[in-house]
């Protein structure tokens, strides 16, 4: 068999299957699974023998085909349920192939449209315009979310791992963490310990958070309460602490 044609031009396993179906002039609603499976596996062998990378999806499809083939070989067990008899093991695959074929056709029609910069061209040189028209407050801003995301990804990718570590290490100090916690407390009056370590933060930061909380208690700037054993530990600003008596004080015990 001549497999050497069109090896890398397939868009995926479905595309390859459609090609085999067309080549063999097969009715897509009645696919001879044994034949198609052996040809499909033959293609995969050729790709492997050429040491080309084989995308995982091709292997998944190979497994699917083999599975369908084995189910086709089983005698139809009639256990009284009519639905079982109608259940063609190929049905799901056929549905998938037809749907893919539809969008492949749609892609073909789309490519056939008059394409900008290929079939039709816009005005080449825009008329000279003074560029001072911009920079006003109420002008609409045109933006693309993807661009924003890309900008961030690019920047983060550009940062060396070492940079990032140094960056966070430098940023971290006990005093700063204490200040941060005090900021939250003065704003909200209270905060849960899990809330303080909820953000995806480093181990080091968790340790600093813990140390900061201890320090705040020592300085009597905050109190820590727990409403029940193993319950949520809450941190309160020390100034207004008439808290109800049902809570168990664990801090200054």
């Amino acid at each position: 068999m001549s497999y050497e044609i069109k090896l890398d031009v397939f868009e995926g396993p479905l595309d390859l299957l459609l090609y085999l179906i067309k080549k063999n002039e097969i009715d897509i609603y009645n696919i001879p699974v044994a034949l198609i499976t052996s040809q499909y596996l033959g293609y995969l062998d050729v790709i492997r023998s050429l040491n080309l990378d084989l995308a995982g999806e091709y292997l998944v499809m190979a497994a699917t085909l083999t599975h369908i083939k084995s189910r086709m070989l089983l005698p139809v067990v009639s256990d009284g349920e009519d639905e079982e008899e109608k259940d063609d093991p190929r049905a799901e695959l056929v549905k998938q192939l037809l749907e893919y074929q539809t969008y492949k056709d749609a892609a073909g029609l789309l490519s056939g449209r008059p394409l900008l910069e290929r079939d039709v061209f816009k005005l080449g040189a825009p008329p000279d315009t003074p560029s001072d028209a911009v920079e006003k407050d109420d002008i609409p801003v045109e933006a693309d979310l993807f661009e924003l995301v890309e900008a961030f990804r690019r920047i983060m990718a550009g940062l060396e791992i070492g940079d990032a570590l140094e960056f966070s290490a430098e940023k971290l100090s006990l005093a700063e963490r204490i200040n941060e916690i005090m900021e939250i407390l003065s704003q909200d009056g209270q905060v849960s310990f899990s809330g303080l370590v909820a953000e995806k933060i480093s181990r080091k930061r968790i340790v600093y958070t813990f140390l900061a909380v201890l320090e705040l208690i020592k300085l009597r700037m905050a109190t820590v309460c727990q409403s029940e054993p193993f319950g949520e530990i809450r941190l309160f600003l020390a100034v207004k602490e008439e808290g109800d008596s049902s809570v168990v004080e664990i801090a200054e015990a």
Partner: protein
Amino acid sequence: MEEKAAILEALIFAAEAPFSVEKAAGIFSELSKPEIADLFRKLAGDYESRGGGIVLQEVAGGFRFQTRIEMAPWVGRLKNVRPASFSPSAMETLAIVAYRQPVIKAEIDKIRGVDTGGVLKGLLEKKLVRIVGRKDVPGKPIIYGTSKRFLEVFNLKDLSELPTLREMKDFRSSEEIEE
């Protein structure tokens, strides 16, 4: 030429994106939208019947001047650049986004039977596809749709101008008969 038509012509020409009836109405307060739409269409008809090198085309919700399709070989020689082209995988992905939008990546992957991440990124970069939101299901996957630029590049007035998938099936069966 009537002055209003002349002004409209200048505006369409100078606008950086297809010029819509709505935008024209914002500038031409004394004309109603239907009147403006009429003027647009009359102007487009004039250019068409004139048989020159440029036409006034309705695209992406507005009108723009562009070269007549028959001029492509000549203009292509002038531009001296490789014409815009899309890989089959890009076209397949674009077709799925266009017809199934709003759509998430998993759905596209499923239909194509392969991972579409790289292709999708390319389409986002070319601004043919855009992020329209997040789906309210576990994992909050990103939802994609086609952009206005998609309409501009493929010379479509709006999405309804795309042939329906039913027409597509007819197209396929007629193709099979031809073969």
